[in-house]
Structure formats: C-alpha cells, structure tokens
C-alpha cells in the first residue's frame, strides 16, 4: 500500500471537477471544483458526511452518474486518458477492466435472479478476457481468493444464499476480477458488522496490494480512513476542504470543518459523557431475569419446524437515572430484547419487573398505563415519523391517546417539548420531509418524552446519523437524563458510542449476554473472547505505516 516513488505522474488526476444535477428546483451542484490525485498502488480515502458529494465524485470517475447528473467543469485524467472525452464504447472497455468498483450495499448490488458465479464470470466474457470454461474457472479461483469456502459449489448459488459479509466478498471479487489499476470502493463495509468489516477490509488490502491496484476509498468513517489510507481527502458540501497524507490531516487539521469532524467522532479514548457512576448507586427501575424469546423456524427443504432462541436467558437491571448499554452485532438478539422491554413482543419466558411490579403479560388498562412510563426511540428517523403528520401532530399524538390536558395545554406542552430537544417551536407546523435527519431524531425524542416517561429505550437511536449530528444528539440525551432523571436502555452496535454514553454495558452474542461491566473496565480489560474480538475490530484511527498516532487517540 505504498506509492511507487519512481512514477510521479498520478494514475488518476481530477482537477476542478464540478458536477451538477438537474432538479425541479433548478441545477444543484453536488461537487464543486474538486481536485484529487491517486498515485499508482496507493489508497486514498474520500471522507465526508452524507450529502458531501463524496459518492457523486466517485461516480463521475467511472461515468456512472445518475441520469440527471452532468459534469459541468473540470477534467478527469486516468493514466493519460481524458475520461470525460472518452466515447461511451471505449468507456465500457475501461469500466470493469481498468477501473473496478466495490459498491456499498451487498444486499442490493447483486442481481437476485442470477447465480453469483455467473455475475463474476460475465466480466471476463464482456471484456473478451476469457470465455466458457475458462471464465468459469477464473471466477471459481476468484471466489476462492476472496475466502469463500467451497467455491465450486458456491459458484452456482444465488445471492440470497449468502450472508452479507459473503456477498461483500463476491462484490470485491467482481471489482477486482480483471486486476484493475484503480478500484473505487464506495463505503464497502458500512452495511456490515464490525468484526466482518475488519475481515473484509483486511482482505481488500491484501488483494489490492498483491495486484498493485490503487484504491479510492469513499467513507464516512474517519477512523477507518485513518487506518486504511495513505492519503485523506475531506469533502464538505461538494468541495474538497482539506487533503494530504493521513497522519498530517488527522494530527494537524488545517480546516475548521475537519477539526470539528475529528472532535465529534467518538473513539475508544474519548472521555465519557456521563462520568464514572457505578451500578450500585441507585435502585433499579427495571429488573430483567431469565428473559427468553423463541421463534419457530423451518429448516431445509422439508420444512421441519424447530425452535430458535433469539434471546436466551438474559438478565440485567437498569438503575434509576442511569444508562444501560446493550451492544452486539446483527442477530445478537439486542433489538428483540428491546421489543420485549417495550411490551411490543411477548416473551417466551422470564420476568420483567418494572418499578417493583411484574409486567410480562400485562394487558388492557395496565398495559396502557405501562406505556406511559416506558417509551421508545428507534433507529431510522426517516421511517419512524408519519410523513403525513406535522411535527406538532407527531409530538401531540401521545398526549391525545392518553387524553392528557386540553387542546391549549397540549399545544403549550408541544412547544415546551420541542424547546427541550433544542428545536424551534415554530417547526411544529412542518412535515418530516422538510427536516434534516438530526431534526427528525429530535422530534422522535420529543415524542418519546411527551408522556414524562421514566424509561426510554433507545434502539440504535443515533446509528443512522452523521457524526456531527450524532454528537449533538448524544449531548442532548445526556442533558435530558440529568435534567429529567431519565433511565435509558441504549442499544447499539457501536462500541465507541456505548462507551461514552453508558454507565453499565452488556455484550450480547447469539441471544446471550456474554460479558457485563462498567464501560471502562469492560473495554480496558475485556474477559470474554467475543468482547476482545469486537474491540480489536474497531478501527482505532492509527494510520498504517505511519509514525506518531493521530489526534483521534489523544
């Protein structure tokens, strides 16, 4: 992954690139005057938040902008060829053969109706590299190279028969099939669990290094960029605001935006937002004992039914006014636990005691009263709000359902709640689509607070947000807890966030709690193998082959 110094002409040179999208409201510039260079064999990361133009810039390189997008100024020089002047037919010969792509979402980027092997071998056929049996054999070799066991068998299987991580490996095999000079990796691992992410990135590193392929890594994750890239390019609102060697940019950011981005990203050394209170300092508001949830599943072609335990013998307690974190990867049972705590899903067995009262099996009026005291905030701020309700309607609805106050009192309460989550009360008349992701999540929090709950269950509540917005929401949550004495159950896959927000943490794997403790103790001295694995997988922001550690660690 080091640049070859003997060839100073870059492999890819982008100068003054401007990309505009034609929209109903006139042209919108998604990329403005961007400069970028990638030398042979090196890895360059484009870092930015959603909407910064980083993906648009990447798409412009291989000429796959959306139909309403156009390059309005600038040049893209690839190995001496002006890509913008290349006719479509010759561009087709560049794509896939000399510039590979590893796209973001492994679920949607494979054709569901074609076997994965054919989706790889067709690349050889299109470019006339190999055909028939030879193409097939090479695809099998590639599947083997990206670490897919039984490649000959797997060649014939369909995408839905692969896990997310395995599909991402297939996409890597596709991107690297023709040993391209440049690989564009657009958020190649953001849809994957952290342990899988590490494996996939290591594999990508290894393969591109052995092929001498340069990588343009598009990511929102600064720590990941720091760990993987030789050089970093920071984009903000369509413009490149800073670029340079990774260590330089991260240790000594010149640009104000880069600095804010670095400060906001929680690392494994960032100071906790909640201080070092211990578990024993308050009486529990929720006590869970031996909680279990089973689902019936069908196995194999004969459809034999069996029981699968999504949550298996889980016990923990939530002290009043504290935050208890549950971390785990997808399928660990953390969200199922949340649903059972919220009484949205019945438990198979076990007890949930809320405020000294058994609540499993509550119904009717008792359940209604319970709902007033335990409220949820979910992950996706776009899906969690009814698009036909104004912000005011959304926040007022719980008050209406529980018949609290007159209309005027409710209006006053809505304003108060919006102020509490640092939103302008005038926003009450707006609809969700007029708000940003962060604003929407504030609305969801205001709605959860409307009934003065004692416990708020936060299920991946900040995971869909950009790092700057995430930092603001985390601060808000901590402030609300102090002010209102709220107890939180904070469910997340992100260990860094859990570390700074929680008083006590439980690590879940395959339905069970494998390790518990204060975040400090747990992350400094993990006992369980799985916790160690999780921690090791987190990109810590140490650039490879660089001297001093970057600012992220300080």
């Amino acid at each position, binding site marked *: 992954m080091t640049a070859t110094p003997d060839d100073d002409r870059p492999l890819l040179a982008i100068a003054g690139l401007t990309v505009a999208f034609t929209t109903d409201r006139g042209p919108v510039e998604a990329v403005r005057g961007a400069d970028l260079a990638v030398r042979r064999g090196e890895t360059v990361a484009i870092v930015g938040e959603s909407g910064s133009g980083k993906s648009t810039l990447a798409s412009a390189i*291989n000429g*796959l902008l*959306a139909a309403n997008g156009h390059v309005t100024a600038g040049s893209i020089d690839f190995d001496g060829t002006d890509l913008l002047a290349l006719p*479509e*037919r010759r561009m*087709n*010969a*560049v*794509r*896939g*053969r000399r510039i*590979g*792509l590893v*796209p973001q*979402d492994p679920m*949607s*980027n*494979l*054709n*569901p*109706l*074609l076997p994965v092997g054919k989706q790889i071998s*067709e*690349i050889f056929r*299109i*470019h006339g590299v190999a055909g028939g049996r030879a193409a097939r054999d090479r695809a099998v070799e590639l599947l083997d190279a990206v670490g897919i066991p039984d490649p000959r068998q797997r060649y014939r299987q*369909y995408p*839905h028969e692969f896990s997310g991580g395995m599909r991402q490996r297939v*996409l890597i095999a*596709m*991107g690297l*099939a023709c040993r391209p000079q440049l690989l564009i990796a657009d958020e190649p691992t953001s849809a994957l669990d952290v342990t899988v992410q590490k494996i996939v990135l290591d594999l990508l590193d290894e393969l591109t290094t052995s092929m001498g392929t340069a990588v343009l890594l598009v990511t929102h994750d600064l720590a990941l960029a720091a760990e993987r890239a030789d050089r970093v390019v920071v984009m903000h609102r369509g413009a490149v605001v800073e670029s340079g060697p990774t260590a330089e940019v991260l240790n000594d950011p010149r640009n104000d935006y880069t600095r804010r981005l670095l400060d906001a990203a929680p690392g494994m050394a960032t100071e906790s937002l909640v201080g070092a209170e211990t578990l024993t300092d308050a009486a529990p508001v929720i006590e869970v004992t031996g909680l279990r949830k089973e689902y019936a599943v*069908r196995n194999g072609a*004969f*459809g034999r039914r069996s029981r699968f335990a999504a949550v298996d013998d889980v016990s923990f307690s939530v002290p009043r006014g504290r935050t208890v974190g549950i971390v785990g990867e997808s399928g660990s049972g953390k969200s199922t636990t949340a649903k059972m705590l919220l009484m949205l899903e019945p438990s198979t067995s076990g007890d949930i005691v809320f405020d000294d009262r058994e609540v499993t099996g509550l119904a009717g009026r008792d359940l209604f009263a319970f709902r007033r005291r335990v409220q949820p905030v979910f992950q996706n701020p776009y899906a969690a709000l009814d698009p036909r309700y104004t912000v005011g309607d959304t926040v007022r609805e719980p008050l209406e359902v529980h018949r609290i106050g007159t209309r005027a009192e409710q209006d006053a309460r809505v304003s108060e709640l919006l102020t509490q989550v640092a939103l302008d009360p005038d926003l009450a008349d707006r609809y969700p689509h007029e708000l940003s992701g962060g604003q929407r999540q504030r609305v969801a929090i205001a709605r959860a607070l409307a009934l003065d709950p004692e416990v708020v269950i936060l299920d991946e509540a900040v995971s869909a947000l950009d790092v700057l917005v995430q930092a603001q929401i985390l601060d808000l949550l901590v402030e609300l807890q102090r002010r209102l004495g709220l107890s939180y159950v904070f469910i997340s896959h992100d260990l860094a966030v859990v570390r700074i927000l929680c008083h006590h943490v439980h690590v879940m794997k395959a339905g069970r709690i494998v390790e518990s403790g204060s975040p400090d103790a747990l992350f400094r001295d993990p006992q369980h193998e799985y916790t160690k694995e999780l921690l090791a997988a987190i990109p810590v922001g140490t650039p490879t082959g660089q001297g001093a550690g970057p600012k992220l660690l300080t």
Partner: protein
Amino acid sequence: MIRFVAKRLALMPLLLWGIVTIAFLLSHAVADNPLASIVGERNLGNPDIVRAATERWGLDKSLPEQYFLYIANLLQGDMGTSFRTKAPVGSDLADRLPATLELAAMALVFAIVIGTLLGVLAARMRGRIVDSVVRVLALLGSSLPVFWVGLIFLFIFYASLGVAAGPGRLSARVIPPPDATGFYTVDALLAGDWPLFVDAFGHLLMPALIMSLALLGTVIRIVRSQMLEEQGSDYARTARAKGMTRGQVLNRHVLRNAITPVITIVGVSVGLLIMGAVLIETIFSWNGIGTYAVESSRALDFPAITGVCLVGGCIFLVANLVTDIAYAVVDPRVRLS
C-alpha cells in the same frame, strides 16, 4: 415443490365444493321457476305435463334434498342434465370448453408477448414519442369497454375494409376438422389441412386480441414501470461498472427482474379473462362457455349454471397453482411451502 403441489391439489376439492355450494344456492335464490324453459311456455297451462316435469327433474324435492342429490351425482362425475339442451351438462361443457380455451390461450399469448415487447420498448424510449404512443395505447386498452371495441373493430376491419375474418370460429360453409382436441387450429394441423388452419387462425386473431386488451394494457404498464425501476437499481449500476453496455445490462439483468411481476398479474387475470369471454363470445358468435353461460342463465338452467361455475373455478385454481410454480421457477428466492 412436489409436496407443495400435492398439498394444493389436495385442497382443490374443498375449494370446488365451496364454489359449487355457492353457485347452487345463488341460482336457487332466484325467485323465478325454470319450468318454462323445461316444458316450454305453451305447456305451462297443462298441469299434467307440469307435474310430470316437476317430478322428472326433481323440482318437487326440498332444496337440501336437491343439493345432496346434486353433490352425490357430482362425486360420480355426473354434473346433471341441462334443462334447456336436455343433454348431460358434462358433455355440453366438453363441447364448448375447447373453443373458449383456444380463444383465452391466444389472448394470453397476445397479452404476454405484445405487452412485454411494447413495455420494454416504451421503457427504452422513455420520454420520446414512441413511449407516449405506447402509454396511450395501454391506457385505452385498459379503459375502453370490450363490447364497444369489439363492435367497432368488426365494423372497420371486417365489414368496411374486409381485411379481418368475421364472427364465428370458421368461415361459412367451412367444415370443422375431425375432433381430436377441440381446438380447431390444433385439429386442423393434426389433420394436415393447412387452408383450414389458416381460416381457423384468422378467425381467432381479432376476438383474441380484443379479449386480451385489458390485460395487455396492464402488462405494458407494469413492464414499463418495472423496467424503469430496475434500471435504476443498484445491481444494474454495478453491472454497468463491470463494463457492460446499457443494452447488455437490460437484456441480461434488468429484463428478467422486470417481468417477474407480470407472472402474478397474468395469473390472477386468467379468471377475469374467462369472465370476459361472455361478452367477446356473444359479439363474435363464438360457441364457447361464455355463450353457454348466457344462454343457460336466461333459461334458469340450474345444472348448467352450476356446471359453468365449477369449470370456471377449476380454471381459476389451476391458473393460480401454475402461477405460483412459475414464480418459484423464475425467482430462486421464492420457496414453495
């Protein structure tokens, strides 16, 4: 898969029993008496004839008795005797069914083939004049009443221009082929009679096209919108990044994904198509189940009406089963269970 088909087939008698029961009850709920069609208007005044007929056809029995008798006969394969034709309903239906099936099959071919072609064409020419024309045609196909289009087409292409064949399954004075399958086109080919095939095929074209219009319009719109949607999907873009041309991506990746929903639509539409046969067959003097249903209803011919319902139900259930199987064959993600 075999398990699934067996399960569905095992369920069919139950569903058919339901259909028969409802059809039986509905046709008996009509207040009118079918005697007039059995003995004829003139004999209604003759109490002896009326009594004899009432006994002969079991109309003096109570409704439950009639019902159980019907079911018992049905289980032995006897669908009763038509009041009107005085022939077994089973053989009446066997005579008429091939004509309707031949027409419906042709209509299905039109809807699927022409619909898919035009849908793909419109998607590829999006925003251009071809696209607009196809979309207007699709809209007209779905919204114009069939009987009206049928008459207009007959008037223009048969009566005025003389380019299309007229009503009926064959031209006047042409003798039908020897009965093997009941499909005139197939039987003509089996008999090696080419001119007869051309005549039968020619007569099939216009009614089949008109019968397919509504479904055709739907298929065009679905294929077009699915093509456009799938073209914008992530896997299509990834395929472009491999170096495929737009055309290659369409043919190899997009098309198959775009036409899978058509299977569902066509499957559930087979029932509607058979229903539409009533109008089409009346206009084109097509001696099929549709005309049989109309004539039987007019005569309050209970056994015949129930028989038509039973056959319709069978076709519908089989079509649904075939749809589910076809879907599983095309889409590997679908597991039949």
